[in-house]
Structure formats: C-alpha cells, structure tokens
C-alpha cells in the first residue's frame, strides 16, 4: 500500500510582486518499505517537497494523501499529530534541543505524544541503544561529536516508530567517514523495514537508495528504480 500519494502538487511563494514556483505539478507515490533518494541542484525544490511530505507545510494546490488520509485539508493540530506519530525527521543541522541531554531529546516526541514517563524512558533508551549511543544518554548535544548528534537525531526520529523517516541532507554537515557511518545506519534501518526518504545532492549518497527521484526547477525530471544487484558501474573512457 502507498504511504505517500501526491497528485499535481504546487507550491508557490509570493516574493513582493514576483511569484516563485518552488514546486510545479509534482505527482508521485511511495510504498511502504521503500528507500527513496530525492536529488537535484540547489533551489530545485527538494526541501520544499520534504517539508510538504513531512506535513510541516501545506501545498498551494494539489492533493496529498498520507496512509490514505487527505492531509492537504488538515488543520494545524491534526498536522502536528501526524508529524508526531507518523513522521521522523532527520535534519542536516541535527536540530537537537541544546539544553536537553540525549535521552531527553529522544524522549521529547513521546512527551508530545502523551506517553507516560516510564515508557518514555524505556523507549528512548532502546532507541539510543539501537544507534549505539547507550553510553552517551546523559550527554548534552555540545558534548557530542557531529556523528553522535546525528545518531541522537535518528534515535529521536525512530522512537515513535513512524511510518516514514525523512532525512534532508543528513550527511551534509559531516565528514565523509562519519557520513558513511550514518548512511550505513540508515541502510540498516531500511533493512529492518523502515520507509526512508532522503534528500541529497551527492550522487554516491543517493546510490544507497533503491529509487532516485530527480527534481529540476520544481518539476520531477526523472524517477528511476536502481537495481541494487548491479554493481555501480565505473565511468570508462570511451
């Protein structure tokens, strides 16, 4: 079944007298268990699409169905509830709460989800253990390395067992080695059955995914499945 089904989505920003068309007539659907990369040059509308998919923003026009429910007509509280229960965000800049320790950061979605304190602590510990941070629970973000912070963010995204995990350039602020670790972790999560949508502009990062959607000027330029059994081909001089 489709987790995500969007039809003819438009997002238009008004800048003074000028209209900026961030998304133009985008249609796509994503199945449960897919690992999708969204690619495209800067300004092509990747983040706008992610925000839309993550219910942080609503389209100017078009239809968005999430798990078969029309999201484009939801009010703010309903959207907040969908974000809380169904969506896990991983951001380029980690976006942890600076004054809270790792455990509390991971607990937070459960606080807003009305989970009691004992269950919260247990689930948050499990999620942090899952991302190999069992020994860093009581560290504040500024006491953690970039890779560790992104792991905390991934644990926070996981803890509510969401329908999809949205990662907007999750390795953008990390060195290559740490970035690879994070990609390995996402791959592991995918193998465990999570649906993952990843934004990147790095070809080698996108190759972790099973499907690549390419955007240009707010339009879907190409939507292709990658056959993972094929060994990535090496550019050969003709």
């Amino acid at each position: 079944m489709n987790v995500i089904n969007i039809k003819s989505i438009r997002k238009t920003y008004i800048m003074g007298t000028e209209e900026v068309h961030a998304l133009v007539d985008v249609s796509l659907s994503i199945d449960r268990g897919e690992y999708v990369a969204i690619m495209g040059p800067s300004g092509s509308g990747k983040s706008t699409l992610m925000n839309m998919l993550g219910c942080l923003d609503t389209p100017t026009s078009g239809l968005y169905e999430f798990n078969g429910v029309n999201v484009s007509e939801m009010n703010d509280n309903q959207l907040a509830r969908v974000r809380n229960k169904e969506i896990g965000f991983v951001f380029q800049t980690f976006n942890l709460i600076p004054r809270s320790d790792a455990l509390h950061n991971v607990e937070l979605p459960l606080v807003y989800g009305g989970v009691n304190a004992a269950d919260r602590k247990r689930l948050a510990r499990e999620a942090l253990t899952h991302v190999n941070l069992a020994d860093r629970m009581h560290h504040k973000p500024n006491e953690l390395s970039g890779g560790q912070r992104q792991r905390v963010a991934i644990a926070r995204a996981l803890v509510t067992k969401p329908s999809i995990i949205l990662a907007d350039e999750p390795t953008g602020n990390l060195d290559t080695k740490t970035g690879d670790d994070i990609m390995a972790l996402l791959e592991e999560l995918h193998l465990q059955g999570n649906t993952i949508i990843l934004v990147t502009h790095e070809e080698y990062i996108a190759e972790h995914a099973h499907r690549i959607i390419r955007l240009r000027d707010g339009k879907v330029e190409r939507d292709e499945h990658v056959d993972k059994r094929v060994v990535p081909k090496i550019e050969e001089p003709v």
Partner: protein
Amino acid sequence: MKLADFTYEVREGLGISFQAIRANKMRSVLTTLGIVIGILSVTLMGTAIEGLSRGFNESIAKIGADVLYVQKWPWFGGEDWWKYRNRKKIDYSNFKAIEKQATLVKTVSPAAWTVVPVKYNGRSGSTVFTIGSNHLYLETGGMSMDMGRFFSQAESDGGRPVVVLGYGVAENLFPRENPIGQNLRVGNSTFRIVGVVEKQGSFLGDESADNRIVIPIEAFFQKFGGNRGIQISVKAADIKNLEDTKEELRGILRKARRVAPGAEDDFSINQQDLIIQKFNTIGGVVAGIGIFITALSLFVGAIGIMNIMFVSVTERTKEIGIRMAIGARRGTILLQFLIEAGVLSLMGGIIGVIIAYPLSLLINQVLPTSMPLSVVAVALLLSILVGMISGFLPANRASKLDPVEALRYE
C-alpha cells in the same frame, strides 16, 4: 486532549523553564526586579494592614471603642461652656436607671473620683486618683488583673473597705513587697488591697489608668460624700449596634432626668469614634500607598517580563521549529512560554517574600503582627498571574510561528 497529555506538557514546560532560567541566571533575576519590589510591597502592606486591624481589635476594648460615656460635658464641640456647666449633674440614680432598664448593654459601671492622699506605711507616691465604681469596672474598661482579684459584687454592694490598685500605684508603693493583703491608707480610711490591675500604658492604652485605685462606690460615698457627680460607662453588647445602644440610653436618661419632650438633652453621651476614624484613615493611607507602589512596580515588572520573553522567543525560534516538527501543537508552545513567564515571575515573587519576611519583623516592633500566610499565598499567586498575563503576547507570537520558517532561523 487527555489530562495526562496536559500534565506531561506542563511538566515539560516547567523543565524547560528551569533550564532556561538557569542558563540566564543574571538576566532572569534582573528581569524580575519589578516583580520583587511589587511583591515586597504587597506583602508588607498586607502585613501592616493585618497589624493595624489586629492592633485595633486588641485595643478596641482598651481604648473603649465599644463604650459609651454618660457625662455632663461633651468631649468635642464645647462651644457653649455655660450651658454645659449649668446642667444638672449625672448622679447615682441615673446609673441605677440605666442598670435596670437598658437591654442593649453588656455592662454598666459608675465612676466617682477624687484626689486624696494615698499612703502605705507612711509612704506616698505621686498624685493618685481614687475611683469609686462597681464590680464591673474591670470588664467595662476592657482590662484584666495583673495579680490578685477585683472586688466582688457583694463587696461592691456592701461598700466593703477593699481596694484594687492601678499598675503604676502598685509599682510606686510596693517596689519589692507583694501588695496583696496589705492595708492602704486612702484619705483617713484604711482599705485592704485585693488586687492589681494589669499595666494599661501599652499600644494606645490609657496611661492615666495605671495611676488609679478603685474602691466600691458605696464605700466611696460613705467616706467622701454621696452628693456628687459621676460618670457612667456603658459597654455595648455589640459594637455594631453602638448607635442603637446610644439611642436607648438617651431615652432612659431623658425619662430619669425628666427632660421635657422637645427639650434638648441635658447630658452628653461620649464615645471614642474619633479614634476609630483615625484607625480607618491610617489603614486607608497604608492601603493607598501600598496599592500604588504595588501596582506601579508590578506593572514595571510585567513590562520587563514581557520584554525578556519576547527576547527569549526570538532566541529560541529554531527550538520552537524543532519542537513543532516533532509534534508540539501550537497550544503546547503557547503553554510552554506561559509557564516560563509564570515561573520567572514566581521566582521574583519568592525573592520578594524572602526579603519581606525580615522587614515584617521590623513592622512587628510597632504593630502587633506577623506576616500572614494568606498574604504570602496571595502574593505568590499574584506573581504567577502577572507573569502569565505579561507572557501572553510573547507566547502567542511563539505559537503562531510557521514551523518551516522557524526551522530555517539561525
């Protein structure tokens, strides 16, 4: 939203507030200065007013605010001296009439007075007033005994040679001995001392009352002559009915003194209402100044909190975006900042109360009071309320942020 969810959000809000305040200790304390002063003044005002009213109630009897004095002379407005001078004297039969007929009174006491030498063992002190009264003298005057007892009704009616000393007289004549049971020379007669009245010269008490001795009025008439003017003290059964009591007395006295219908009273009924008025004035002034200072400083404090909360919201725009992204509703964000403003202001309130406490001990030097718990509770609730009101606009702004914009904020 379920109650449990609300509780989690409140607890989270409290946690965030403490973290935020700890992260900005100096700024937080300075911000609450207005609240500190406001709460300081509201608690001190409450304490002072409480002290005034307690002092008033304690001394209402001592100063005789519930007592009417039947006398020949009015206390105030003596513009027609000759008229009052020529009035018939207030005599013992008038007292008997009131004692027999009045219904709205608690106690009635006559008082005749004279000045004669008062000696013990040949020793005499300063000039002492000798009062002739009945056994209800003590209660009517709102006094109590320091030692011994007052003379009984039987002793009073029988004109027994017993005497009760004022505190000052006892101090003068018996610096070391126990006066009870000793014989006192009053004029040419001997009286046995049965008791000493407690000191009266404290808060708004009547100092001259310490310099008296009291003997049964029947004995007084025997020794010093019965044909003299007296004063009649009437304690009202209920201070709220003072005016009715006064009217009743007027009726009784006019009949007893055969005042023709339509003619003016030939007596005066005096009361301590000026003192009551003075009390109300002082209380009003304290309340007025207190409320003014409180309102002014709470207003300044509220502006300070509003200002710092706007700063706080701006500083934490990104954090607000993050919280919204992981599921905080707009109401959650609103609540969080309201709680933070409330906690900040409450902190000011607590500091205010802590400073007010030693100052209330100073007030206690002049007024019989301690900081009432109710005033503390009201002050703390007030500070939370002020905080939440002043935090509303910033909190509202925070809750209206667009999550995408907020997340992009650096």
